[in-house]
């Protein structure tokens, strides 16, 4: 697979000019899958859910939970409203993939959301897009308007009696609204304070009603699974984390960008061949594989590692959003880690003390080290802080802030110690 990645034909962002236009999408078989699902007796909602579950489609928003399994958590319909909330808030540093779907293939996402709505007996889809993506919100709204005009959204789609409304909501600048319960609060017009779980969204979600939250890329895979079957999907990439992946490659590479390739691509191939190697002929030093919260890997730790859940876990990190941030030999890891802690401190919503105060202390201590005022014992204080934050808060932001601190210090300890005062070493 590594050899023939150049032959891979993208299916999420296919290389078909103007596929973002509804007519072109339809000429290429678009909206046929939902039509078939709604018109045939064979495709019951349970069968659709089971097919997606069998495909082992892992959520592409970072957590990697089986999407079909998530759908199956929805309770039996009771006649009241039920919601699908599509999460387009992508704000994890290093992640810039979902905007490509809004720009290049919005209708496949809409079709996926329609299939998901049918499978879960949902009649309202809220698509939450980060406010900074104004340009892409406008593009996507146009796609929604066009789908309404053709009758693919709205009442009685394809005469099936199934009705779905889709509404686009703009965020307004808050990373925490990418956390699914924070997003629901924001959709309800409030501060994006995450909710305690349980109750889980499937029981009590938007406006207290059953709700499923899926990432944009996740839902864009759904029409492909229903059209081609779960076996087809499982044959793309490794078993533990199959399917096509939008790899967002950024940092010190010659050709950064979003690349659609099978899951399980070797890290080396992605950096050296796909992204055309490190800029300026420099050496590769470190990789953050799936957004700022995923633990950093030193170059030597990337040997033989592939971009799928199992391989990355073995290497000591996570798949996250597959937003790969590549660093060259000149990169100062103290600077990088300070900037990451600054991000999480800035984005902590402030509800939980360990996170609100903890992210602040992480940043302060790293600032101290960065400015040459740090002592070696500060490194151990930082590591201690991470254990006091992790798992002690409503949502996972504290964990997301703690992991990079622990792993960057542990994996580049020498570099951090060199920046700390020697005198303090004896005191530590």
């Amino acid at each position, binding site marked *: 697979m590594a050899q023939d990645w150049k032959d891979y034909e993208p299916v999420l962002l296919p290389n078909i000019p103007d596929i973002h236009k509804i007519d072109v999408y339809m000429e290429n078989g678009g909206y046929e899958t939902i039509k078939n699902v709604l018109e045939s007796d064979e495709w019951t909602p349970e069968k659709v859910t089971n097919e997606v579950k069998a495909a082992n489609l892992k959520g592409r928003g970072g957590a990697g939970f089986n999407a079909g399994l998530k759908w199956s958590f929805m309770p039996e319909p009771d006649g009241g409203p039920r919601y699908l909330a599509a999460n387009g808030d992508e704000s994890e540093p290093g992640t810039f993939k979902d905007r490509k779907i809004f720009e290049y293939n919005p209708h496949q996402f809409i079709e996926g959301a329609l299939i998901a709505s049918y499978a879960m007996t949902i009649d309202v889809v809220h698509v939450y897009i980060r406010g900074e993506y104004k340009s892409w919100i406008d593009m996507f709204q146009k796609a929604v308007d066009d789908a309404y005009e053709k009758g693919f959204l709205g009442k009685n789609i394809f005469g099936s009696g199934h009705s779905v409304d889709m509404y686009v909501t703009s965020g307004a600048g808050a990373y925490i609204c990418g956390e699914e319960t924070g997003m629901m609060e924001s959709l*309800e*017009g*409030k501060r994006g304070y995450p909710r305690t779980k349980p109750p889980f969204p499937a029981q009590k979600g938007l406006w207290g009603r059953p709700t499923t939250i899926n990432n944009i890329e996740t839902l864009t895979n759904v029409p492909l699974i229903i059209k081609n079957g779960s076996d087809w999907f499982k044959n793309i990439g490794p078993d533990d984390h199959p399917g096509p992946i939008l790899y967002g490659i950024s940092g010190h590479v010659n050709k950064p960008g979003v690349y659609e390739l099978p899951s399980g691509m070797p890290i080396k191939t992605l950096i050296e061949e796909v992204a055309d190697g490190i800029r300026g002929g420099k050496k590769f030093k470190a990789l953050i594989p799936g957004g700022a919260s995923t633990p950093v890997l030193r170059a030597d730790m990337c040997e033989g590692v592939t971009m799928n859940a199992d391989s990355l876990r073995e290497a000591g990190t996570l798949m996250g959003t597959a937003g790969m941030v590549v660093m060259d030999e000149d990169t100062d890891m103290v600077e990088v880690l300070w900037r990451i802690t600054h991000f999480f401190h800035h984005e902590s919503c402030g509800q939980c003390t360990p996170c609100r105060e903890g992210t602040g202390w992480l940043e302060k201590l790293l600032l101290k080290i960065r400015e040459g005022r740090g002592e070696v014992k500060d490194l151990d204080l930082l590591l201690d802080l991470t254990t006091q934050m992790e798992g002690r808060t409503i949502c996972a932001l504290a964990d997301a802030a703690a992991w990079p601190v622990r792993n960057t210090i542990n994996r580049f300890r020498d570099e951090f110690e060199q920046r700390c005062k020697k005198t303090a070493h004896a005191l530590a």
Partner: protein
Amino acid sequence: MAELKFDKEDLNEIEKIKAKYPTNKAATLQVLWVAQRKFGNVKPEVQELVAETLDLPHSHVHGVASFYTQYYKEETGKFVLDVCTCLSCQLCGAYDIVDYIEDQLGIKLGETTDDGMFTLQEVECLGACGYAPMMQITNGVYVNNLDKEKVDNVLNDLKNGKMPAYEQMQLPQHESTTE
């Protein structure tokens, strides 16, 4: 600043927004956007107008406006330059770009030029990591792959009232097959 009032067109838009959700409260973020586009910011008196229009407590609207970074709670320059300095942008020289813009405009981060033309801010990840460093102008267009020359051009254009055009960032796999 225009008179603190929504006109008929705004109110029509607000009705359309309200129709998307089961509660008035849910429209808060979107109506704050309508207000900010009209008045340029959501200062306390604008928040009050939003609260009255949606029949919500002022405290709720204030709570929302103060939580989200994209709402301007005070007056800004005519153009707000949001330079991303987060992770990938940092790696690709975003702080040099900030220094350069500071020098060119004679202001520091968080400040507005005396002529009221530009406000300069540092922001968190804008989701343009592959096109770093970059900035967003007044919650609108993204300007990617910044270098000094490009900054000069953008500042000149803005001074002449010309907003940079939307830059389509091609998918590399699409480019390679169209060769």
